[in-house]
């Protein structure tokens, strides 16, 4: 059985858990547990919290979706989760400009390690005062080749669209 991994990241309350819940075939596993020695960077007292979802692609292939912890104290998990990932979705709460800096920090983090295919999902587009994807692109200073997509993490079609757009980016980098 081959597994591939996508990572869903974003600031606290960006909608990561909801995003995974909406598309996962299994009940989303949200964990909070003591760290183990598996993660060398983790301090003993640190707890780990993340979300995990799964989509079976076929008998021999499964897609795992990992939601990174949003809190700063769990930064160390990002590196671990990003190892071997196929692609990355950065979720942004479009109604909360106070989280934009943190979002940039997260993007910087992931991009400083590797050239991972990623898209930005402008979540909560159904809410009043949501910044549009184009406004978010400017606010986050994202280059024009990075896709910034409208998203409602509670809507399955919207989540599917984000994943398909990410897969389109991944496809462009894949080999025959």
């Amino acid at each position, binding site marked *: 059985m*081959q597994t*591939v991994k996508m990572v869903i990241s974003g600031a606290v309350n960006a909608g990561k858990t909801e995003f995974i819940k909406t*598309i996962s075939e299994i009940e989303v596993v949200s964990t909070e547990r003591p760290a183990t020695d598996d993660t060398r960077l983790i301090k003993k007292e640190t707890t780990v919290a993340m979300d995990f979802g799964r*989509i*079976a*692609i*076929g008998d021999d*292939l499964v*897609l795992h979706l990992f939601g990174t912890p949003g809190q700063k104290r769990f930064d160390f998990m990002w590196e671990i989760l990003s190892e*071997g*990932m*196929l692609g990355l979705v950065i979720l942004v709460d479009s109604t909360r*400009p*106070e989280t*934009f*800096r943190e979002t940039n920090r997260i993007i*910087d983090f992931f991009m*400083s*390690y*590797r*050239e*991972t*295919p990623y898209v930005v999902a402008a979540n909560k587009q159904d809410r*009043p*005062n*949501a*910044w549009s994807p*184009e*406004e978010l692109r*400017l*606010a986050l*200073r994202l280059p024009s080749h990075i896709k910034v997509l409208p998203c409602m993490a509670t809507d*399955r079609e919207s989540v*599917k669209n984000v*994943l*398909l757009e990410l*897969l*389109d980016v*991944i*496809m462009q*980098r*894949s*080999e*025959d």
Partner: protein
Amino acid sequence: MPLVGNIRDFGLSDFLYLVDRGYKTGCLHLSRADEMASLYFDKGKLITATRKDDNVPVTELLVRKGKLTPVQAAQATQVHQSQNGVTLSQVLLNLELIGRDELQRVLQQHIEEAVYALFSWNEGEFRFEQGQRPDPTAPIMPTPLAVEHLIMEGVRRIDEWGRIRDRIPSTDMVVKFIEQPVERTKGINLAADEWRVFARINGKDTLAEIARKTGMSEFEVCRIVYGFLTAGLVDVIRKPAPVPMLATGRPLAEAPRVKKSLVTRIINRIRGM
């Protein structure tokens, strides 16, 4: 729908950048305690700014500055009231009561000072109303002002690390130009020290290295680069960490290359959900 937030979280210079790059037309309302200011933009450029305690027609402002007599002001106001769709500034020019350059100079100075004072606000609610236009009697400049210039001057007045650190967390970061920086600098007048830093940007040197090479303090270099960054001239990136290599010569941290057939299978599966 208005864009709302607090400049504590999304700074004035960041917002000006957004207005500029988004070619926004509308009004940015700022409020803090009993202070209020409104900045009006047309296609990304500033056309006027007013503060609650100094919200006067252009004629009154010009009379106050000795550029117009009360009689001329009354004449212009009367003509303006009989015309639709024309600003009072335009009427003053049409009546040749003041020259275009002179009007621009006086209004620009007045408006710039109003805006620069706002850069000292560490917090304050903002609300951007798309499409909102100023009152036709407001001191509207004949030539709208490019915001890069405002950002650079506003940033010169920043004297605290806190705000700079939000964008430049470390002096180990590398500064590089973004696309066509020469084009972007056309509206900006750089001071001598700013040129010294500008000339050292090569996409390789860190801020600390630039400080050493220019003999300037790290704070001063960071403050100047913060201005370039906010005006959209440069980007600041982390110095790439050395990537460990596998025996095959392939970088350890490189994202895995996947087969198109595998991606196609995932696409088909998600489409079918």
